[in-house]
């Protein structure tokens, strides 16, 4: 008949491998093949440059609102790099980098933010769900995918991304709880970028870390330096392996920072200081990793220059292709009736015909 502290079997860890100047903790340094290291770097850089380009396109009115990833490259590319192609990735709406790593095209992403229904098409064989806008809701889909994998005996894993803000939503809770109970092979990656639009992390929840929320579901939680791609990669690899081998789900909190606007509709000067942003610039995930690669002899200044050019061309091509595609698609509004159901029911066929007649009449009167 005591009053005593309860010992919990799980605890919460913090992991960091590359410090902010790019120095590596040799005890923790993972053994990643050179090619893979180069690939990680390439995709982070591509993500950064594509983001910059999209911002310009948006400012020019050539695409609509989108959510930049600047500063979060390591938080999303490290985790997906731990996946196999036949695993599944379930994004929120700020994972352009992860989506590209996983095989989605820049064209597709541009088309999405250009406002075209047709952007929904996923390239053949890519196991990514589409962007999910309602915050936190996609977490459950990953759990369902995970259930399917387990049910079918497939040794696959579902990884889902969400922000610090998303942890306040009921669906986050229900998803992690289901995953715990059913021990589904799911890796929950929280990109804690310190802000949910104007709400700072400290006001989102009173828990000291987001990782510790794992304790509520009897699963391991780990907080990592989200601007350290070695750490995000290592944490995710452990979690993916655990999930794949039947060890159940993991919550990973990547501590990072959204250095750009929330979306292009947002004005962050209303709620945060330039100093705070500048502080995080110093912890840039790409510069840091470049230092590491240079130290390892895997990246020279010239190689970097060449890579930048290559990426630039790639992005330019994608933009050009997409703008052409947008022009082609501009007149295809009738597509809005497609894919509502496997088969269009009669009343929708009538409505479609209604619209087709309207468009034909307009065409006629214009011609």
């Amino acid at each position: 008949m005591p009053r005593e502290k309860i010992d919990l079997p799980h605890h919460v860890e913090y992991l960091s491998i590359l410090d902010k100047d790019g120095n590596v903790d040799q005890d923790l340094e993972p053994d990643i093949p050179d090619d893979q290291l180069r690939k990680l770097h390439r995709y982070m850089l591509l993500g950064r440059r594509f983001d910059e380009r999209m911002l310009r396109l948006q400012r020019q009115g050539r695409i609509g609102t989108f959510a930049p990833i600047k500063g979060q490259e390591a938080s999303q590319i490290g985790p997906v790099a731990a996946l196999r192609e036949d695993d599944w990735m379930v994004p929120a709406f700020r994972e352009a980098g992860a989506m590209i790593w996983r095989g989605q095209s820049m064209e597709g992403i541009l088309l999405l933010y250009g406002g075209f229904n047709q952007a929904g098409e996923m390239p053949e064989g890519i196991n990514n769900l589409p962007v999910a806008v309602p915050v936190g809701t996609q977490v459950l889909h990953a759990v369902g995918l995970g259930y399917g994998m387990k049910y079918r005996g497939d040794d696959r894993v579902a990884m889902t991304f969400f922000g610090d803000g998303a942890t306040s939503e009921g669906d986050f809770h229900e998803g992690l709880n289901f995953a715990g109970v059913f021990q589904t092979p799911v890796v929950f990656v929280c990109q804690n970028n310190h802000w949910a639009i104007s709400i700072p992390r400290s006001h989102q929840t009173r828990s000291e870390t987001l990782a510790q929320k794992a304790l509520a579901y009897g699963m391991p939680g780990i907080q990592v330096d989200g601007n350290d791609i070695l750490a995000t990669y290592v944490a995710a690899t452990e979690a993916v392996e655990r999930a794949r081998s039947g060890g159940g789900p993991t919550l990973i909190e990547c501590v990072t920072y959204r250095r750009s606007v929330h979306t292009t509709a947002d004005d962050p000067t209303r709620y945060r200081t330039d100093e705070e942003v500048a502080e995080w610039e110093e912890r840039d995930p790409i510069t840091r990793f470049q230092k590491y690669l240079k130290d390892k002899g895997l990246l020279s200044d010239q190689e970097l220059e060449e890579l930048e050019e290559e990426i630039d061309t790639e992005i330019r091509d994608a933009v050009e292709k997409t703008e052409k595609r947008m022009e082609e698609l501009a007149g295809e509004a009738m597509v809005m009736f497609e894919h509502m159901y496997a088969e269009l029911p009669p009343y929708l066929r009538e409505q479609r015909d209604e619209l087709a007649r309207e468009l034909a009449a307009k065409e006629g009167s214009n011609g």
Partner: protein
Amino acid sequence: MAKMTMVQALNHALHQQMRKDDSVVVLGEDVGVDGGVFRVTDGLIDEFGKERVIDTPLAESAIVGTSIGMAIYGLKPVGEIQFSGFSYLAFHQLESHAARMRWRSQGGYHVPMVLRMPYAGGVRALEHHSESREAYYAHTPGLKMVIPSGPRTARALLVSAIQDPDPVIFFEPKSVYRAFREEVPEEEESMPLGQAQVVREGGDITLIAYGAMLRPTLEAAQRLEDEDGVQAEVIDLLTISPLDTDTFAESVRKTGRAVVVHEAPRSFGPGAEVVSRLVEKSFWYLEAPIQRVTGFDIIIPMFAYEQVYLPGVERILRGARETLNA
């Protein structure tokens, strides 16, 4: 052929579909060991095991949200919400994802799930256990909304719903669950979704109903014949969305008069859509205003008064007679 209650017929459909197709899984609160609070899933766990007949934690959004993920992965989840009054906790998953995945992915992914739930009044239950809010789902593009009226239609429609490649909300009128039995064939039987049935022919007036309201409507039709010499045609909608306009529009072109009956609140309810489609499709044939005999626009009362709230034979009769005399 066996005589079955609606509960038995639904249970039969689940057994049969699960035997036939191992992608069919059942999930929800108390659907496994307990067999469902109304026993619709009784015995499934014994035959198919707990991986396929999944007792979930108490979380409706998770039941629907994980069903979506399962369905995308190729399973055919048949989820249960214990009472339709609790489906609102999952409303966003239904509106924002189940209904949209096919569209959002331009056909790349689809969500062949069924979400079953008991709905409507008449069983002396607690608050939130007697609502009829099918209009919420019927108004949601991307969903289908089905409501059987008896054991046989329940079985056949559930089979179709399970086999349908798109998400189907399946409301089961709980007052019908054990109210009567019907012959239900042993072999699989399905019925196309989106198709209403003329269950009684007549040339004087069209009565349009569904779910638990079908029986009092049929009874009213009989009394119209017996007491007024009036031949009422009775239509069982069966699918609320996509609504089978042709069947009732055609009937009203013949009868010129219509009454639509439902338990749901009247305003912005399913009856309004039926009326509107009749105005659009059969206006020139109308000889009287179309009547709505429905629940009132209030919260369905606690059970001491629910029978007063629910449309019954008398109220339907009165509506029909007013329409006939208009």
